[in-house]
């Protein structure tokens, strides 16, 4: 089990103003699995994603990433877990505007412990079809290209988990399908546990499992 939520719950406020953003949730994902969490905006998808990604702690329950129980760690240690174990693909392009494609990965190379050998990095570029773009800056790339670079960043040095927040939001259908195919191929070949949060129901055919989030309740479809 790579990622597990045990009786995790997130509430904000107290008394009359208490809001349950995420009701008691049990969730598991294994290596090689591509999982979707779908639901309308405001349903608690993002809360789920940030808790699963160790960006915030659940009010109750546990989050276990690769054997590490997150609630027992401080922010510095959680930051380390995020860096080493999780690849994020975010809705807003998570590229650094003043770094070229090569430098985006070079930055990870500087801060991450387990680095990717040069050949493997080259293979990653080719898998994602961005080998020719490596000298370009984000402002020179199309939305699809940018998202592929973001995927390359997320996959850099083979994290256990990929968390993607609306990775196809800014893309047309063809590009969106392309990106999903890439994610599926990489999930299978790299044996990562990939969770995609989306409201885009066109994509459902790509997933092994689909969860529906409604008013803070997560249900397997």
């Amino acid at each position: 089990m790579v990622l597990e939520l045990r009786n995790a719950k997130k509430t904000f406020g107290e008394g009359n103003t208490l809001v349950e953003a995420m009701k008691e949730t049990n969730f598991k994902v294994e290596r090689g699995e591509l999982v979707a969490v779908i639901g309308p905006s405001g349903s608690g998808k993002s809360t789920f994603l940030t808790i699963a990604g160790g960006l915030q702690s659940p009010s109750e329950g546990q989050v276990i990433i690769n054997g590490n129980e997150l609630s027992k760690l401080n922010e510095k240690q959680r930051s380390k877990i995020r860096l080493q174990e999780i690849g994020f693909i975010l809705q807003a392009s998570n590229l650094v505007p003043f770094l070229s494609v090569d430098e985006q990965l070079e930055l990870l190379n500087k801060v991450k412990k387990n680095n990717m050998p040069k050949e493997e990095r080259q293979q990653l570029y080719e898998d994602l079809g961005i080998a020719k773009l490596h000298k370009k800056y984000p402002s020179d790339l199309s939305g699809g290209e940018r998202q592929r670079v973001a995927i390359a960043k997320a996959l850099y040095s083979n994290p256990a988990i990929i968390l993607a927040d609306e990775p196809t939001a800014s893309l047309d259908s063809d590009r969106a399908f392309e990106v999903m195919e890439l994610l599926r191929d990489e999930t299978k070949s790299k044996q990562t546990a990939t969770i995609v949060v989306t409201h885009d129901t066109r994509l459902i055919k790509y997933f092994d499992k689909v969860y529906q989030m409604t008013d803070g309740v997560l249900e397997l479809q």
Partner: protein
Amino acid sequence: MFLAWSEIKRNKLRFLLITSILLLVSFLVFFLSGLANGLASMNREAVDKWDADAVLLTEESDKSLYQSAFNKEEADALGADETAIVGQMGSIANNGDVKKNVIMFGIDPEEFVMPKVTDGAAEFSVENGVIASDALKDDGFKIGDKLELSSSDTELEIVGFTDKARFNASPVLYMDLEDLQQLKFGDAAEINADIVSAVVIKDKSWNSLEVPADMEIIEMETFIENLPGYTEQNLTLTYMIYFLFVISAAIVAIFLYVLTVQKISMFGLMKAQGISSSYLAKSVVAQTFMLALIGVVVGFGLTLLAGSFLPSAVPVQFDLPTMIIYGLILIAVAILGAVISVWTIIRIDPLEAIGG
């Protein structure tokens, strides 16, 4: 360093602007320090050249050479390692073309205040011969010039030049004490033959010398600080320099803070991905260091370049160790200016950056 330098390369213009401001501030700091040093030299270089430890003056003169007069035998009674007598008189010297305010020091050529000449005769080879400060050369004075004085009919003759011989902003004319007494007291010279203004003392343990009645022994530095206008002028320039340090810290702080605020969401995303605050903070500090270093080094070079084009009338004199220290302080205060940005980065919540 990687992140810092990549950003500078990609955003040359905005970093060029801040570097140029740092450059101008450092130029001003270096220039003012040169000016302070040059003005100080104008006042004290003759005294510095004596390389003495203390000076004997009358107590009622209140540490002023101009107001002090006493019998030179006091020097013998001191029992110091080495002493030198100095008489003084101010005047206007006129070589026929140029008039110049000068101060004449009457000395004993056998004693250590006797200057080494850089040009001309090494002794007072003729009656009323003087060894003049080479600052007068720039004004058109030459060896062999006959100098008319404003206060006497006696003519002096320049027999040699020496370097570093200005006192209280006037070029010094060194001459035999006997000649000076004649000039100063005229017919009364005989009676006043033993009257001097000061006795310069070379003795590390001057503090333990027995001070004669109504006299005062003061350290050379104290003597210089009490020259008219010296301390006031120094403090003014020093305060300007200190203020510039504060200004450059403020400029850097504001600029970096604006840049950091612009990048909050980017830093938040990086933090969400697990890049540590300390890495990002180090990057900002490294960036500040690079900008400040470039600004200060170029400012340093420009200051020296500008200094070499200045007319000699501008009393700028660069002291490299002082400039290097000021340069390091400028870099240090710039980095201090980055502290607000570092604090901002540490406080960024990655959760907000990804809109969770």
